[in-house]
C-alpha cells in the first residue's frame, strides 16, 4: 500500500526546493520578513515588542503567523496538484502500481514537513526579538499546528478538485481561505460578532484551529480543547470523503 511513498515524498521535497518560488517564497521570505519586523519593532520604543502580542490577546501573533504559514502551505498544495493534473503528471503516476492515495499522501507529507521546518526557523529567528514565555509548550504547539494544517490541507484537496485550471488555483484558494482567517476569532473576538456571523464561524474550520492554537500557546491542556481536535478531524474526514468522490485525476 505504502510502497513508493518514501521515495515519492523525498523526490517531491527536492523538486519543491528547486522551484524558484518554492524554498525562497515559502520559507526564507517569511522568516526574513519576521526578522526585519523584529528588528524594527525592537528598536522603536513607541511600539515595544510586548505590545504586539497585546494587539491580539495572548499568543495572538504567533498564532496568526502560524495560521499564515499553514495557509501558504495549503495554497501551494492546491497550485501544485492542479498543475500536476493539467500537465498529466497525476495520470502518469496513476498508471503505475502506486496507489492513488499514496500519490496524494506524499504531497500532504511534503507540506507538513515544510510547515514544521518554517516554524522551527521562525522560532529560532525570532528568539532574539520576541521572548517566548517558559510556560509555552512549543512541542505541543507544533503538534497542534501540524494537526490544523493537516485538516486545512484536506480543504485544499476539495478546492483542487473543483478548480478548472491551474491558473485559478491560487486565487480561488485565497478567496476561500483568507476570509476564514478574518472570521476565525483572531482579529475580532467571536462573541463580539453579530449572531448571524457567529453562526458562520461555527462551521469554519479555521475557528477551531485558532482556538486550539491559542489555547495550547497559553498552556491549556489538550483535553480542554478536545472539541477543537474533534472538529478538525471531522473537517478532515468530511473533506477527504468529498474529494475522494469529486477529485479529478486529469
Amino acid at each position, binding site marked *: 500500500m505504502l*510502497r*513508493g511513498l518514501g*521515495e515519492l515524498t523525498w523526490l517531491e521535497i527536492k*523538486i519543491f526546493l528547486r*522551484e524558484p518560488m518554492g524554498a525562497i517564497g515559502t520559507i526564507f521570505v517569511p522568516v526574513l520578513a519576521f526578522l526585519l519586523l523584529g528588528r524594527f519593532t525592537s528598536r522603536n520604543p513607541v511600539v515595544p515588542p510586548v505590545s504586539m502580542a497585546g494587539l491580539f490577546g495572548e499568543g495572538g501573533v504567533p498564532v496568526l503567523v502560524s495560521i499564515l504559514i499553514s495557509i501558504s502551505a495549503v495554497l501551494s498544495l492546491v497550485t501544485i496538484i492542479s498543475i500536476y493534473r493539467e500537465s*498529466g*503528471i497525476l495520470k*502518469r503516476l496513476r498508471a503505475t*502500481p502506486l496507489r492513488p492515495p499514496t500519490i496524494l499522501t506524499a504531497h500532504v507529507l511534503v507540506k507538513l514537513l515544510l510547515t514544521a521546518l518554517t516554524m522551527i526557523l521562525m522560532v529560532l529567528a525570532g528568539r532574539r526579538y520576541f521572548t517566548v514565555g517558559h510556560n509555552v509548550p512549543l512541542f505541543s504547539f507544533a503538534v497542534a499546528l501540524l494537526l490544523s494544517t493537516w485538516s486545512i490541507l484536506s480543504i485544499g484537496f476539495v478546492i483542487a478538485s473543483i478548480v478548472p485550471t491551474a491558473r485559478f488555483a491560487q486565487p480561488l484558494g485565497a478567496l476561500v481561505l483568507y476570509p476564514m482567517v478574518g472570521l476565525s476569532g483572531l482579529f475580532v473576538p467571536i462573541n463580539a460578532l453579530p449572531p448571524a456571523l457567529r453562526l458562520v464561524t461555527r462551521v469554519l474550520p479555521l475557528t477551531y484551529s485558532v482556538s486550539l492554537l491559542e489555547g495550547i500557546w497559553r498552556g491549556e491542556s489538550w483535553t480542554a480543547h478536545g472539541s477543537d481536535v474533534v472538529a478538525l478531524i471531522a473537517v478532515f474526514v468530511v473533506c477527504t470523503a468529498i474529494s475522494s468522490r469529486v477529485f479529478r485525476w486529469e
Partner: protein
Amino acid sequence: MTSPVIQVQGIRKTYGRLVAVHDVSFDVNDGEIFGLIGPNGAGKSTTMECVEGIRTPDSGKITVLGLDPIRDVYALQERIGVQLQQAQLQKRIKVWEAVRLWASLYRKQPYVGDQLLEQLGLTDKRNAWFMTLSGGQKQRLFIALALINNPEVVFLDELTTGLDPQARRAIWDLVRGIRERGKTVFLTTHLMEEAERLCDRVAIIEYGRIIDVDTPQRLVARHCPEREVILVSDDGRAADAFARFASVTRDGSRYSIRGVGEELVADVIGSLSEHQIKVSDFRTVLPSLEDVFLKLTGHSIRD
C-alpha cells in the same frame, strides 16, 4: 498457437452524452506490434486506457495476460509498461530520479535504469531536468519508464506525435527493438506511415468502431487493389503496345496505365520488352494505408 495476449470484446465507453467507443473488439497476439490507427477523437486513447486499466468501460470484456484490467489492476500494472499521450513529468525532476522512482514502484526487477538510459541514448542527460529535454528525449525517457519493470506488454499512445522526422525514425527503431526482446507492443497512431512501417497488424478505428483488422499489406490488397504505372516514352509504337490495357491515359509522351491486382506491373514490363520500347522514366504508384483509410471512411485521416 498461443492464446492472444490482449482480448477486447465489445467494449463501449461514453462520457456523458458523447459516445467515445461504440463497440470495439480485437485481439493482440504474443510478440507482435499491433497498431490502433485512426484520426484524433476516433476512440484510440480511450480504448487503450481501458485495456491498461486506468479507465473503466461501460460494457464489454477485456482480458490482458489473463487478467481483468479493472479487478486486477495492480497485478496487471506490475506486468505492463505504459506510455501515455501528452503526459508530462515534474518540470524539475531529473532524468535519473524519474527512472529511480519508477524502478522503486515495481515489485520484481533488479535496477536496470542505467542500462536503459544508455540504450535509449540518455546517459549524458542523466542529471538534466525534465523541462530541459527536447521532445524526442522526453519520449525516450517515457519509453525507459515504460520498460523499467521489464514488462510483457508495452503500451505506446501517440508516441511520435510532435516529433521531427529524424527523431521519429529513431523512435521507430527503438520500438522494433522492444519487439525483438520478445515483448508485445500495442500502439496507437494517426500517422499512416508509422503504422505501415512499424506494425505487424493494424486495426482501423473510426467514430468508436473498428472498421477492419489485418496486416498493412493485406489491408491494402483487400481494399485498394488498384495499381498505376506511370512511364515516359518517345517511342511512337508505345500507344499500340499498351492497347491491351483497359485504362490508359496519355499526356504527350507520358502514359498512365491503371489496373487491378499485383500482375499489372509485370504485364506492363512484359509489353515493353515484347515491343522493345525504350522508356525514359518508369514508376509505379502503389496504394498505401492512407488510401485504404480514405476508401473505408470516405475522408482523409487528416480531415
